[in-house]
C-alpha cells in the first residue's frame, strides 16, 4: 500500500502536488474572505480559454526533442503581425479573425523554418539561445512597430501619426468573437466562453491527430531516440524543423485567440516574457523537458491560471496586501527550475 502511494507520488511529483493542494486550499478559503467562488470559476474558465492554445503550442517541440520552446515569442510576433494587418485591412467579424489567423500562419511558417534552421545547428544548447532569440525578436519588433507604415486610425498614435500604439483594442473588429459563440450562461455569474473552448478542443484534436500520422510518429521517435530514428532512414533535422514550424504556427494562433478574449492587441514589450508562463503551465501539468502528453496541457493551464486567478483575490483579502505578482514569479520560475534539474532520461 505504501509502495503504491509512493509510486503515485513519484509520478505526480512533489511540487505539482504541493501546488495543487495550494490551489485547492485557496478555493476553500475563498468564501471566508469574501471572494465569490463562482466568479472565480468564471474567471478561471475564461483565462483557460485565453491561454490554453499557447500552452498547446509547446507540445510538438517537446515531442521532437527540441526541448521547451523558450522562443515562443517568434510565433507570438507572427500572430501580432497577422492581427494588425487584418485590422489595417479593416476586416471585421469572423472574416477579420480568420484573415488574421491565415496571415499569421504564413508568417509563422517562415519564422518557424528560420528558427528551426538555427536550432538544428546548435543541438544541445537550444534553450538559452532560444530565450535570447525570443527577446531579440521582441525588441526588434519594437523598432518595427514604430516604423512600419500602418495607417489605420484605430491603431496608430493619435498625435504625431507615426507608429503603432502600445495597446490596440479589438473592439469593433473581432472582440470576443469566439467567446460569445454559443455562449452558455450558468447562473448570474458564470458565462462560459464556449466558442473559445471549442476552438481549443478543435486545435487539440488536430494536434492529437497529427501524432497519429506517419509524420507524427516519426516526430515522436526522433524525440525518443534520434539515433534510432536516423538508423531508420529518417531525416532528423527535417523532422525537428517541422516540429518548430508547428509550434510556431500554434503559438501564432494562440496569441490571436488570447487577443479576442482579452480584448487588446499588445505590442512592444508585452510579449517579452510570454514564453515563461506557458512553459511553467505545461510543466505544472506534468510535462518534462523531454516528455509530454496532451492532457498535461489541460491540467497545467487549469492549475497555473487557477493560481493566477485565486492568489490576488484570496491572499490579498487575507493579509491585506498584493502578493500575487511575487507569488506568481516564485511559482512559475520555480517550476521551470525544478524541471531543468530533473535527471535527463537515460537511454541505455
Amino acid at each position, binding site marked *: 500500500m505504501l509502495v503504491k502511494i509512493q509510486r503515485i507520488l513519484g509520478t505526480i511529483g512533489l511540487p505539482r502536488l504541493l501546488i495543487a493542494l495550494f490551489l485547492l486550499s485557496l478555493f476553500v478559503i475563498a468564501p471566508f474572505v469574501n471572494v465569490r467562488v463562482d466568479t472565480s470559476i468564471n474567471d478561471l474558465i475564461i483565462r483557460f480559454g485565453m491561454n490554453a492554445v499557447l500552452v498547446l503550442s509547446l507540445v510538438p517541440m517537446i515531442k521532437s526533442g527540441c526541448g521547451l520552446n523558450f522562443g515562443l515569442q517568434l510565433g507570438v510576433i507572427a500572430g501580432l503581425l497577422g492581427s494588425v494587418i487584418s485590422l489595417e485591412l479593416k476586416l471585421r467579424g469572423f472574416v477579420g479573425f480568420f484573415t488574421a489567423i491565415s496571415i499569421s500562419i504564413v508568417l509563422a511558417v517562415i519564422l518557424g523554418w528560420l528558427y528551426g534552421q538555427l536550432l538544428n545547428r546548435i543541438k544541445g544548447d537550444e534553450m538559452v539561445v532560444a530565450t535570447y532569440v525570443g527577446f531579440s525578436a521582441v525588441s526588434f519588433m519594437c523598432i518595427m512597430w514604430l516604423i512600419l507604415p500602418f495607417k489605420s486610425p484605430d491603431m496608430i498614435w493619435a498625435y504625431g501619426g507615426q507608429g503603432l500604439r502600445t495597446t490596440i483594442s479589438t473592439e469593433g473588429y473581432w472582440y470576443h468573437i469566439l467567446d460569445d459563440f454559443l455562449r452558455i450562461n450558468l447562473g448570474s455569474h458564470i458565462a462560459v466562453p464556449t466558442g473559445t473552448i471549442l476552438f481549443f478542443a478543435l486545435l487539440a484534436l488536430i494536434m492529437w491527430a497529427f501524432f*497519429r*500520422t*506517419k*509524420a*507524427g*510518429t*516519426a516526430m*515522436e*521517435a526522433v524525440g*525518443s*531516440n534520434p*539515433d*534510432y530514428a*536516423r*538508423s*531508420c*532512414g*529518417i*531525416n532528423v533535422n527535417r523532422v525537428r524543423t517541422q516540429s518548430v514550424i508547428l509550434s510556431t504556427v500554434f503559438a501564432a494562433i494562440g496569441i490571436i485567440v488570447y487577443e479576442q478574449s482579452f480584448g487588446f492587441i499588445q505590442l512592444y514589450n508585452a510579449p517579452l516574457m510570454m514564453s515563461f508562463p506557458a512553459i511553467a503551465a505545461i510543466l505544472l501539468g506534468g510535462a518534462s523537458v523531454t*516528455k509530454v502528453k496532451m492532457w498535461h496541457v489541460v491540467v497545467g493551464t487549469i492549475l497555473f491560471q487557477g493560481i493566477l486567478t485565486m492568489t490576488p483575490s484570496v491572499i490579498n483579502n487575507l493579509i491585506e496586501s498584493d502578493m500575487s505578482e511575487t507569488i506568481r514569479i516564485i511559482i512559475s520560475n520555480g517550476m521551470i527550475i525544478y524541471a531543468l534539474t530533473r535527471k535527463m*532520461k537515460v*537511454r*541505455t
Partner: protein
Amino acid sequence: MSETYLLRMENISKDFYGNKVLENVNLNVKPGEIVGLVGENGAGKSTLMNILFGSETIHETGGFSGKIIFDGQERMFTSSFDALEAGIGMVHQEFVLIPGFTATENIMLNREITRKNLLTEVFGERMNTLDWPKMRSRALQAIETLEVNLNPDMLVKDMPVGHRQFTEIAREIDRETTKLLILDEPTAVLTETEAKVVLNIIKKLSQKGIAILFITHRLQEILDVCDTIVVLRDGKIQKILKPMETNAQEIAQYMVGRELSEQKSSVWEEREFHEVILQVNDLWVDMPGERVNGVSFEVYKGEIFGIGGLTGQGKLGIANGVMGLYPSEGQVTIRGQALKLNSPKDALNAGLAFVSEDRRGIGLLLDQPLSWNIAFTTMQVKEQFIKKLLGGLIKWRDDEAIAKLARDYIKKLSIKCVDENQLVCELSGGNQQKVCLAKAFAMNPEILFVSEPTRGIDVGAKKLVLDTLRQYNEEYGVTIVMTSSELEELRSICDRIAIVNEGRIAGILPPTAPAADFGLLMLGKTDVKEGVESAS
C-alpha cells in the same frame, strides 16, 4: 616464498548476474616481470583487470571472490584511487587526457606541485600556488625515463596519437609509488614505429623493477616482449607459457581451441552458392573503437556469411558502415547496383535490414511499446501499416495492423511479455533482442545484417535466435551477414567466416577449419594455410 611475488591473485571468481565470467583464476607476478594476457572476447581479461584496479562496476555487480595479495598485504581495492595509492597504475584504451592542456599539466593532473602562500592559512590548501618550474622538470624526468621525444609544453590536442599514449604512460609512472602497471591494448591505435617505442618503454620499465600486465592480441608483441604469457579462455586460465618454449600456433590453439562438436557438424552440410548479391570493395568506416581500414569481400545470395574477430578490431564497423550509420568511404554494390553510402535510407530501400549490436542505444525505442518498435521501420520506409486518407494526403497510423503484426512476432519468436503494448524497457535483454529481430524481419529484407545476435541472452534464447536466423535463411532465402564475437556461434551456422584484424580481413575460412587457424587470424598471422588467400 610469497615475498618474491609482487602480486598474487588467488582463486579469483566473478559472475555477472549468474553468468560466470571468471573461474578460479590464479595469477602471480614478480616485480619487474612482463606478463602478457591473451584471450578471445569474453575470455575475462578486462574483468580480471577491472577487479585488480578496483573498478566500480565490479562492486556494483556483486563483487568477486578470491584473494588479492599485493606487495605482501592482502588487499581489497574498492576504487581506482585505492589501487593507485597502493602502487597500481592503469592505462586504459580510451585516453584520460585533457586536450587543451600541455603534456606537463596532464602528467601532473591533480598531483600538481604547489607552494604555500598567505591565503593558504585562511582558505586552505587549494589556494596554494602552482610551482610550474618544478612541475616541468618532474614531467621531463618522467619523459626521460621513457626515453621518448615528448615535448612537455606541447598541447595534447596538437600531438599525434602515439605521443598521447606516451603522455598517459608518463603520468602513471610519474607516481613514485607505481610498482605495477596495467596496459590495456596500448598499441591498438598506434603506428608501427610508435608501437615499437611503447614496447621499448615496457622493457625499460621492467628493467627498473616495475611489473607490467600487458593485454594485447598482437602475436609478435607477445612473443617479443613478454616474460610470461597467460592464455585465458572462458574465464579460466588455459595455460601459462614462456615465449621461448612456444609458438604462434600453440598460443592460438590454447586461445580458441574447441573442436566442433559432432552434433553440429552432422547437421550442417556444405552448401553451394552461385550468385553474388553483395560486393564490398575497399570499405573504410570511421566507427570509434571499431575502425575499418579497407575491407573487400563478396557475399553469395542465400548464404550465411560470418564476420568474426577480437573486440575493437573492426568487425562491428563493417555492418554499421554499409547501413550508413557511421561515416564511410568505399564501394558497396547490391545485385550489381551501387549503394549510396552514409545513407540509412538508401540501405533500407535497397533491401537491407540491420540488427545492431547496440540494442538499447539505436536498436530500440525503450519508452515505447513493443508494437511500435517492431513496426516502426517498416512503417516509415515501406509505408506499410498506414491507412491513406483524403487521397493519400494524410497517412494515418494503422494501430490495429501494427498490433496484429506485433502479436504475430510475439508468437513466432516466443517473446515473453504482457502484451504487445508493454514498454520495451520492461523486457529482459533476451526479449529485447527478439524485438530487434522482429523489427528487421518485418522489413522482409533480402540481406540481413545481424551483429552480436546473442549477446547478453541466456542459453535457451540463444538457440532460439540462431535457429530463427537459420530458418529465415532456409525458408525465405534471406542472405545473412552475421557479425559476432563468439566464434562458436559463427561456426555453428555460417557457410563461411571472415576474420577481421586491425580493420582488415585477415582471412576467410570455412566453419570446419581447425580452431587454431581462426585463432591465428585473430592474432594477426595471416599466412595460415593454403586455400585461404590473405593479405601479403
